[in-house]
């Protein structure tokens, strides 16, 4: 079985979610004795995709940006050329634009947001915002899977692999990028962070976020917030995690002064370890927590900062 996997890059680096997709595709094809071809574009050193598990890379140098329709045509050409029967993408912005189009064009079953490797033609994915897992059967000859970001780790045990030039007729992009506003920030992008420190209304006001940022910095974590906090403008919208904000699955999620409404939990319940700090012992979040501290954030967080500093000094 041949597997093709799309790898997206940003600012000269492959995204973490793309590397996860490559590792997923590599493990899937290896489990049935096949090979894994990573598909990418532009002027980037793509041999590094071998370290995440690709056997080879096909790269279209002439393409400079990832437009949904153009990448669809690139992947269709790569599928045709390779005869691949498994197609993998990350369930990120580009994956959400490309995978459905591929499914239509190839009449191929698509399982979106898979978090586990397939067994035969059954692929498991999270449903009900993480409250259940569905076992989905793919009934078509070709299977397409998009991998839920942060659910399948990057396996970086491989070695650099050969990169071959690949060209396809990709047409022109109908969606035009007018502007990209990158917000100046030294912090880690939230969807890619493997540790997150998040805070809610219990912080009483935006002026008190200094300690949240400091704790995050000491732990090497990104900062996030609850919906009420972004709605009243204490924190930017892109920090809002939850049902209507972004869903994250870090290894460590520390929630300070967040009660844990079900809508908030839906965005964070995939986290490996959840720590809840709240002065209300009845806060529903404690039911979903691995570790809890019932106490005032203004007393607890400074202790944690000091302890994290001491811990970092021993490393």
């Amino acid at each position, binding site marked *: 079985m041949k597997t093709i996997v799309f790898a997206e890059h940003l600012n000269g680096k492959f995204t973490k979610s793309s590397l996860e997709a490559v590792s997923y595709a590599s493990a899937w094809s290896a489990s049935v004795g096949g090979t894994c071809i990573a598909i990418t574009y532009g002027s980037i050193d793509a041999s590094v995709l071998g370290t995440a598990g690709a056997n080879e890379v096909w790269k279209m140098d002439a393409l400079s940006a990832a437009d*949904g*329709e153009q990448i669809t045509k690139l992947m269709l050409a790569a599928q045709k050329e390779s005869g691949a029967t498994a197609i993998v993408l990350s369930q990120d*912005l580009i994956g*959400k*634009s490309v995978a*459905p*189009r591929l*499914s*239509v064009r190839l009449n191929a*079953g*698509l*399982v*979106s*947001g898979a978090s586990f490797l397939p067994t035969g033609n*059954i692929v498991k994915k*999270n*449903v*009900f915002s993480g*409250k*259940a*897992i*569905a*076992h*989905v*059967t*793919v*009934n078509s000859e070709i299977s397409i899977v998009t991998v839920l970001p942060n659910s399948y780790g990057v396996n970086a045990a491989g070695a650099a692999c050969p990169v071959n030039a690949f060209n396809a007729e990709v047409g022109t992009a109908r*969606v*035009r*990028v*007018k502007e*990209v*506003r990158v*917000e100046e*920030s030294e912090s880690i*992008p939230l*969807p*890619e962070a493997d540790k997150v420190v998040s805070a809610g209304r219990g912080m009483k006001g935006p002026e008190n976020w200094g300690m949240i940022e400091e704790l995050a910095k000491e732990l090497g974590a990104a900062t996030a917030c609850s919906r009420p906090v972004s709605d009243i403008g204490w924190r930017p*919208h892109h920090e809002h995690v939850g*049902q*209507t*904000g972004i869903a994250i699955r870090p*290894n*460590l999620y520390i929630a300070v002064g967040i009660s844990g409404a*079900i*809508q908030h939990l*839906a965005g964070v319940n995939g986290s490996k*370890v959840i*720590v809840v700090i709240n002065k209300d012992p009845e806060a529903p979040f404690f039911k*979903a*927590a*691995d*570790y*809890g501290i*019932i106490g005032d954030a203004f007393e*607890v967080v400074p202790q*944690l900062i000091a*302890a*994290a500093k001491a*811990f970092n000094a021993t490393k």
Partner: protein
Amino acid sequence: MKILVCVSKAPDTTSKIAFTNNNSSFDEAGVNFIVNPYDEWYALVRALELKEAQGGNVTVLSVGGIDYEQIIRKALAIGADDAVRIDAPESDALSVSTHIANYAKDKGFDLILCGKETINYNGSVVPGMVAELLDMPLVALAAKLDVTNGVATCEREVTGGMEVLEVNLPAVISAAKGMAEQRIPNMRGIMAARTKALEVVSVENTTATTSVNNYELPPAKSACKYVDPANAAELITLLHQEAKVI
């Protein structure tokens, strides 16, 4: 401007998630179904705002059985002009998208709006499939949408910032948080919804390319371990030595 808004139903966020028939189907007993929030709060309300500002018509469309009618009436009560229910089982995303595209292809819609995903299946797939089936461009996960002279301008969140995109209509756009604010239907809207047109379209069944075999619940969380607030530093030790996450 002719706008089509695709709406799906979803169990209320507070619903108990349980399964029946050997865990092969969702247990709907006692479950309250709502309009999928992304479809209602963002896609539908933004469509209504655009219509109110520029004129036009907003049609809501659902694929599903008779149990969809209360969902559709809710969308009409919020302000959609008319509605279509395609009478077919919601088997898989490709079947649903095929029904939507077959209905929409000769109706001259300028804009097809969907929520970015349903809160029960979390697929984020139907908008892209509809776009491909209708040979239209797609902007996925737009958090802002404006339309001027047949050109849609969208903003969406990308890693580390925002991106501004432009696309000529007709196009498919999926809505993320920020595109609009939830509207609560008023009594006048609820009364008016009763008499608005709801067309039921019969279709041939399609073959599903995927099917759900069964469901399982995630392993139960072990009980929360409490740390003394007077000795909060112990948490850092536990995270390092026991949980091994730092």
